[in-house]
């Protein structure tokens, strides 16, 4: 079986946080306790959207110690393939859904003397759980959170109300920006920096911290990529002896699953490496979008991450 263990849950709360973000609360259908987790963990939510099964990862934002319910926040992506739109428009209180056990690819480094969090937009969610975890153990943390505007600043109010000393918010529409070099230079020895947000922000923080001489082990990031639509293509599967058409709006991984091929996966966002697949033959161009393969592997033509990457061309033969 692929993916993490599953839990059947009931939606107990659907709250519009602002124009773009909606929060969902899940409890176990059988009334039992949910597993505890570590701050930074995500769950993969299964959505039955007509004939299509969508599986999207969302960071858990609730208190990791709270075994009664999990909460996630979903930002509506009107350009995406429909997972977030499904969550926003179809999911109602009382619905039964299946989610995965928590999986953490963005764990706190518990050796850190201080945790410096840098969030952009919906990237705030894993930090909400990490903050709750650190508060329980009197951990030392500081948050720098960039949002488009006050109206779109999810959870700004509660962060400022409960953690006014640790929380620093920057609004784009007020031309406020994080002075990153100054911020990094001012940190005590033993600080770890964590960034979650848009691709540009992650790249900026990683590059700046490295240029400032931060050790790579002290720079942590998480970016879940949603699979992007693209041109349809055909894939031949050597082991299962099948030919599968990948349509415009589905990922290669989803197409494999639709064809009944049990392909391994975990995060479905290009980060965990679990779905790494060997390419046996190809004639065309890869559209690699993952964070997993290194430069040499990306250019080798021998590997693809089917959760987020696509292909354009005549022939693609995979070792599945």
């Amino acid at each position, binding site marked *: 079986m692929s993916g993490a263990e599953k839990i059947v849950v009931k939606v107990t709360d659907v709250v519009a946080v602002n124009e773009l973000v909606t929060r969902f609360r899940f409890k176990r259908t059988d009334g039992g306790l949910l597993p505890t987790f570590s701050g930074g963990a995500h769950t993969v939510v299964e959505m039955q959207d007509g004939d299509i099964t969508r599986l999207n990862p969302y960071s858990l934002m609730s208190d990791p110690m709270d075994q009664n319910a999990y909460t996630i926040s979903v930002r509506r992506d009107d350009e995406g393939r429909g997972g977030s739109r499904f969550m926003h428009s179809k999911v109602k209180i009382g619905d039964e859904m299946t989610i995965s*056990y928590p999986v953490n690819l963005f*764990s706190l480094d*518990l050796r850190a003397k201080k945790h410096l969090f840098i969030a952009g937009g919906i990237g705030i969610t894993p930090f909400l759980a990490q903050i709750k975890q650190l508060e329980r153990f009197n951990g030392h943390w500081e948050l720098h959170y960039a949002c488009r505007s006050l109206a779109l600043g999810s959870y700004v109010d509660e962060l400022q109300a409960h953690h006014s000393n640790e929380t620093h918010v920057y609004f784009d529409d007020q031309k406020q920006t994080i002075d990153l070099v100054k911020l990094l230079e001012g940190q005590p020895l033993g600080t770890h920096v964590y960034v979650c947000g848009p691709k540009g922000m992650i790249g900026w923080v990683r590059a700046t911290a490295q240029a400032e001489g931060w050790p790579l082990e002290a720079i942590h990031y998480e970016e879940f990529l949603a699979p992007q639509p693209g041109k349809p293509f055909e894939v031949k599967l050597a082991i299962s002896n099948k030919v599968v058409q990948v349509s415009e709006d589905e990922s290669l991984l989803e197409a494999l699953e639709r064809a009944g091929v049990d392909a391994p996966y975990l995060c479905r966002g290009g980060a965990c490496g679990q779905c790494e697949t060997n390419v046996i033959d190809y004639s065309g161009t890869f559209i690699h979008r993952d964070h997993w393969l290194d430069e040499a592997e990306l250019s080798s033509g021998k590997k693809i991450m089917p959760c987020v990457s696509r292909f354009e061309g005549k022939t693609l033969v995979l070792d599945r």
Partner: protein
Amino acid sequence: MTLQFNDETFRDDYSFRNSDRAIKRFPFPFHEDSYMYSVNMEQHRGGPKDSIYEMRFDVDEHYISEMRDRAMVLADDPLRCQSLPHMTLAGWDLLELIMVSKSEDYPDLFELHRDGDTWRWVNKPLGIDDTFTFLDEATLPYGPMEYITRQTQGDFAVLDQRDDNLWMDAGMITTQADWSLDFDIGMNFFEWHAPVPLAHEKGIFIRALKFLLNIQQGAPARRLNWTMTVNPLLDTSPENYHKWGIQKTSVTPENIGAKQHLRVELQTFFRLPRSNALVFPIRCYLCSFQDLMTAPKWGRRLHRVIRDLPEELATYKGFIDNRPMMLDYLAEFDDGQATSAGIWPDLETEPALKK
């Protein structure tokens, strides 16, 4: 289930014994007539009834005596139990995992009563009834990892996960096959495995690490590993090599059946939820050659495996000098008949020895 606990020793007079039940459920580690390293992992979700795979943490007839032996090792050498400061949360994770598992799997032996953070733990075999505050170390007589592993058979390596690697940052190691926590503490997966021959060349450790990093909550894994030990010693540590190493020369053709033990480790792997660390319990089972020979299949197979094992492995596992004597003994139990696949003794179906 009523379990009779043995009163026995793993040192000095070596009164350790396996009952018939313990022999039948011994985790014989060879599923075929030869052995080479592999990433032989499978899911750890139960197994045949009364087998060592059935429960998450197997409790057997040696429980009380093994815990007594552990206490003696720790009294002599407190560094067998260490936990770096960032691993305390993982220690609580482990305490929770073991208390919940044992109280659910052995309700007649262990009880856990939770009222918020106030927990009461009853361990009937060891006569313990403690009430403490979960996540408050001051309310336990030891740190959480030490507290619970003084009450649980097997060694425990608690591995921090970061930078795509695993780090030996905490552990309770008193029944080990010649490796030292005090030496390995703080090392990463490749560093602590550096002494193992052949496996690096085969890329075993790269694949094993990838597998372990991906072990998820609710989906533990397991494998068996093995070596050889003369006399039923739990503590075959490098720290005490001067005490037990010499015993390897005490084996004679007359006493080898009783003295020579196959030492098998049931290694399991659990993701710890609150800390995202990985715990690696290493449970040691010992069985004398003469007890193993009561299963004809095991007699045939053990002879073939030991005979054909590469020299590097026999050296690494520390029995190269005694191998000829072992083979003389074991050859008597190998009549050349075929063996069935798998590790189980198949006592009902395997033919008796024809010699």
